[in-house]
């Protein structure tokens, strides 16, 4: 079914009785060419691009819960390509370009909204670092500007310019950054993949890998054995747990990132704003909620919930730069499990086990990567070669001494 204004009009006149399921609920076949483990954003986009761009029709996505129940279902919806390092920036710029044509591509309005992202600067060294970053962005073909306080004031008159502990000295501004309706991304990819023949099997937990002579030949699941020529793991928040079943230890720790949404308010925040002297970032959804967050709690956890010190820290950051939000009420706080890698950058790679592929370690930056991650993973699965923009996301990079460490914190995952 093709979605359009005309379709809505027709359905509206006939009692909205003609809508059909956005995807099938198939039983798994005995064998596929490729089985993707994990029906979150990255898994679904991988399936979509495998089918659409690489002609792979015999693909299944197995998901332990409901599709989109991973971190695609609980993030703060920001897209941007404002990275610094050569290993990262071209990949995220590729992702941003895919976002820009995504809705027409998969015929689903995911509300890609490029209202811009503003990273505030509060010191000279920070300005130097952001100029370096902005120039790197420009070199990669992305957009970036350095703004002074006067320009920021025009854009965001509600920030604290006069009484701040860490005065606002400028900002790096990426106009093409913005937000996307996160659930709709999962749904759009799922619907598009399903329409191209991908079987999306929900409520089907993977319990083990099928290994024959050191080669991975399928997965054991709650719905039985599924054989596959290639198994592609893509399970943010469960990477270590799943890969342990294949005997692998990963350069990953799992942490909780809390996120917050306020009650619905008339629009006040134009794009995305981040505080440069504390942990706080905010945008406003199309429904009116202020969507904000800050730092991870900082200890290993799989509990999908956090604690109060970080809640307070985040709100302090918010009040520090925009004290006009004091009377807005925090409506809901939640926590998602982040697979924090040892350098803050992800992996899209074959493992040392033939037939077994791994995509993970996205830290808290996986959402914006969803299209490129899927595309590059599909490229790797279909061609057995890394996509150009993802060639640095190798599992052996620490052995070689080539970390991609944007924050310069080293092998301390909770600092990335």
């Amino acid at each position: 079914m093709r979605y359009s204004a005309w379709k809505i009009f027709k359905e509206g006149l006939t009692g909205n009785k003609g809508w059909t399921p956005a995807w099938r609920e198939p039983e798994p076949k005995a064998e596929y060419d490729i089985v993707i483990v994990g029906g979150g954003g990255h898994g679904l986009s991988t399936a979509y691009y495998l089918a659409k761009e690489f002609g792979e029709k015999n693909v299944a996505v197995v998901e332990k819960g409901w599709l989109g129940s991973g971190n695609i279902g609980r993030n703060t919806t920001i897209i941007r390509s404002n990275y610094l390092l050569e290993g990262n920036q071209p990949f995220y710029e590729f992702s941003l370009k895919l976002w820009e044509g995504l809705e027409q591509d998969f015929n689903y309005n995911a509300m890609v909204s490029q209202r811009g992202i503003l990273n505030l600067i509060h010191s000279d060294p920070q300005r130097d670092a952001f100029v370096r970053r902005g120039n790197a962005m420009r070199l990669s073909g992305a957009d970036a500007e350095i703004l002074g306080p006067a320009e920021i004031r025009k854009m965001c008159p509600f920030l604290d310019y006069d009484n701040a502990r860490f005065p606002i000295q400028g900002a790096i501004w990426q106009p093409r950054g913005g937000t996307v309706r996160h659930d709709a991304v999962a749904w759009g990819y799922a619907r598009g993949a399903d329409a191209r023949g991908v079987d999306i099997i929900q409520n089907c937990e993977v319990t083990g890998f099928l290994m024959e002579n050191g080669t991975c030949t399928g997965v054991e699941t709650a719905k039985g054995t599924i054989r596959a020529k290639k198994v592609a793991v893509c399970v943010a928040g469960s990477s270590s747990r799943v890969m342990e079943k294949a005997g692998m230890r990963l350069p990953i720790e799992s942490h909780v990132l809390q996120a917050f949404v306020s009650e619905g308010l008339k629009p006040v925040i134009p794009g995305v704003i981040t505080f440069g002297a504390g942990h706080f970032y905010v945008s406003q959804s199309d429904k009116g909620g202020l969507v904000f967050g800050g730092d991870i709690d900082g200890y290993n956890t799989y509990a999908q919930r956090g604690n109060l010190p970080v809640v307070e820290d985040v709100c302090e950051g918010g009040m520090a730069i925009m004290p006009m939000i004091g009377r807005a009420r925090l409506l809901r706080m939640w926590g998602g499990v982040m697979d924090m890698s040892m350098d803050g950058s992800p992996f899209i790679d074959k493992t040392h086990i033939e037939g077994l592929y791994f995509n993970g370690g996205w830290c808290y930056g996986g959402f914006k990567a969803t299209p490129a991650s899927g595309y590059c993973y599909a490229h790797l699965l279909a061609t057995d070669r890394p996509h150009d923009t993802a060639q640095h996301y190798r599992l052996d990079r620490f052995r070689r001494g080539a970390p991609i460490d944007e924050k310069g914190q080293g092998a301390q995952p909770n600092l990335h």
Partner: protein
Amino acid sequence: MSQPNRIDGGQIDRTHSLKFQWNERWMSGHPGDTLASALLANGVKLVGRSFKYHRPRGIFSAGSEEPNALVQLRKGAAQEPNTRATTVELFDGLYATSQNHRGSLEWDLMAANDLLAPFLSAGFYYKTFMWPKAFWEKLYEPVIRASAGLGRLSMWPDPDTYDHGYLHCDLLIIGAGPTGLAAALAAGRSGARVILADEDFTPGGRLNAETYEVSDTPGSAWAENAVAELAAMDNVRLMTRTTVYGAYDHGIYGALERCTDHLAKSDGKPRQVLWRIYSKRALLAAGAIERSIAFGNNDRPGIMLAGAVRAYVNRFGVAPGRHVAVFTNNEDGLRTAVDLRAKEIEVTEVDARKGDMIVDTKGRKGVHSVILSNGRTVPVDCVAVSGGWSPTVALACHHRGRPEWREDIEGFVPADDLPPGMTVAGAANGTMTLGACLSDGHERGVALAAELGAHGSSGAVALASDETFEIKPFWHVADAKPRAWVDLQNDVTTKDVRQSHAEGFRSVEHLKRYTTLGMATDQGKTANILGLAVMAETSGKTIPETGTTIFRPPYNPVAIGAFAGRARGKDFRPYRLTPSHKWAEENGADFVETGMWLRAQWFKQPGEKGWRDSVDREAAAVRRSVGICDVSTLGKIDIQGRDAAEFLNRIYSNPFLKLPVGKVRYGLMLREDGIAYDDGTTARLSENHFVMTTTTANAITVFRNMEFARQCLWPDLDVHLISTTDGWAQFAVAGPKSRPLLQKVVDDLDLSNDTFPFMACTECSVFGGTPARLFRISFSGELAYEIAVPARFGDSMIRGLMAAGEEFDAVPYGTEALGVLRIEKGHAAGNELTGQTTAQNLGLGGMVSKKKDAIGLKLSERVEMNRHDDLRLVGFKPKDRAVLLTAGAHFLTPGDPADMAHDQGWMTSVAYSPELGHSVGLGYLKRGGERMGETVRAYSPVRNQDIMVEVCSPHHIDPVGERQRG
């Protein structure tokens, strides 16, 4: 100012009247009213508009679960959007307006959306607004955003203050209804330390809203007596207007106390206090929340929960209507009819258990009639609906617990996956009758107190009759032609739920996300179970098979300002001030935030027009005569013990075992991953006593890492560490005249080059006996010293140094001149030590020992970190000497395209060198060491700069180091 719907009875204070304004109209009420009860008393039915269709809406509940009656409270900077009229205590002069309408509340232009409803069904926005592509951001989205949200922020800084507080108790009881009061009485009498928290301003819960008797007194009077008894107990803290909003780890609960929200003004008091309550045990006695039944046009003003109708009649002395239809599927709902008739209000009973139904209602801005399933139209001005009660399980599920379905009450109750230490009692646990709640509360109170070691006499259990609680599952009028609402605030109807199912959104989480059910400010407190039931029915499953979404904190929304507390404005983080801060203030210093520190960045002199004038003068003065800079912010670590040298040798990448006593050595630290981490100097004051300095930025983490190494890696080394960063005031005294200046200051110490050469150190005294430490080290490249005195002498020291330096034209210099001097000299600092570069990159490869084991050495040998074409720190000058360099520019080989593949590095630091008369820079350049004299392009599109620069040694001045050794 009459109150046409005010009737006898209730717990309001009729001896006083309060005036308030609603949508600019003056009205009156009484102490004890909420804004909602006062509006009803004044005959106001229409109070707001729904989110999507802008349907007229009235007051639906009498508590914090309210989905409809959200108002903009107060004026100016103190205004507060989305405030539930049902929880706002009336105060004199209260000002409130309705929200979410264009034009007046009565004639909302946006109500046109309601006519377009067939085209705005669940998820419609995912299927359109995609063509043409550019229109989403230019047209569609702005239109959608314009209609987003409900209330408005004032856009002014929040004028109030908020406090944070910490409380400890044996037993936290959440909810002061019959169960909570009975439990608190029992536990309190037993001697346990109890906190009893309730969100209402009058404790008692449903006892205030019902006509039950407890121990032969009216329920509300019994509650009053219980409260009085609890108030007299030293071991009980009764917290009203306090919402326990979240259950966190290890018995920690978050609670919000509203201190001045019920007053016209805060008068300097904190508006709210955010409490963190540390409890050994918690008893959840949060009661239950009534839910609706979905029938045609069940959202009209005047249609409210049956329990709320009883609350208005019994507690507030207000008749929400004069002819009320009671539509219920349970026995409790029918009590409404009894209570209303007692107030001589006409009632039409519609009992779903007997097959009777309301199928439609009429009256756009206030219900005026209902149409029954038998075809009869009954004129009414209020409908009381009860679809049963849902136990308030939220806090029990904050640790991701999944509640269990109980068929006898048609509701979810907490399972056994409660937060550790929590017990649930009363209606929150599915105990739905009063007598049972009172005894449940009493028994839990006794048992918990005993567990906690309090065994005093708990007194007798209060008695009340147990009415039957009989409910028959009935969720919605299936064949209702008009839309039937499930979620009132977000405008989710039964049709939306069915459509969600038809489109494959069948998981309860998909249902929520696709239709927005339960995502409004009330988080679906009155709607979620109803939505689940309709989904279950549509998919042919049971309600427990369909499941529930996750309960997340906060139970009720909490102001962001309350979470932030006092940490805002200049108080966001504390300031660390240097020992010479006061002196610097007196001497024209301009300060800069450096982490938590506030440091002097330059000292403006009369006649200087801009900062460059000051900085150039200061830097030049250091090179010409002498300057003094407070460097106390550097991290300082005192290291003592027999194995101190061995320990340092394992911490630094370069050797430290053979550092002689009385000498200082520059040290480089790596992280364990081989990356350059921190640098500084370490002085050996005696055989077993070293003093280390670290960078200002890493002072805390270097100490932490050294403690890790000491305690965890090498626990048997005899070494002890103390951070003395705040213990010593330290001043750099730099420049050719630094020696004669200091010679005047030190007691009995010969500073000649022979006796106190470059990199010498000693303990000494200054100004006739003040203890001090002197180090001959140089960051500027000049003859220089750093002298340290205990921090309490820091202020005297700077004054003494400046007085002693007068004859040498000594100047104070700030962080900017410090930066100029070190860039001229080519010393790396924070801009170079990014945590991404190796010692080799820094040109310090020679400091990485191959002959020992120390942190990071092994992994620094990895192949990609030792590539011949790697980055190298070098110096730069502009080809056109008049041009000022900018930090952050990327280097390109002239002729190469400007893209990432051809990126050659970047400029880390720049300064104008008054010594050289032009701008100088440091930067990382690929193969930089081999490219001296080469011209490269410094490309900085974000600063609109694209210039040619010459590669040179990073040591722009005195490359062989004659000055510092002189």
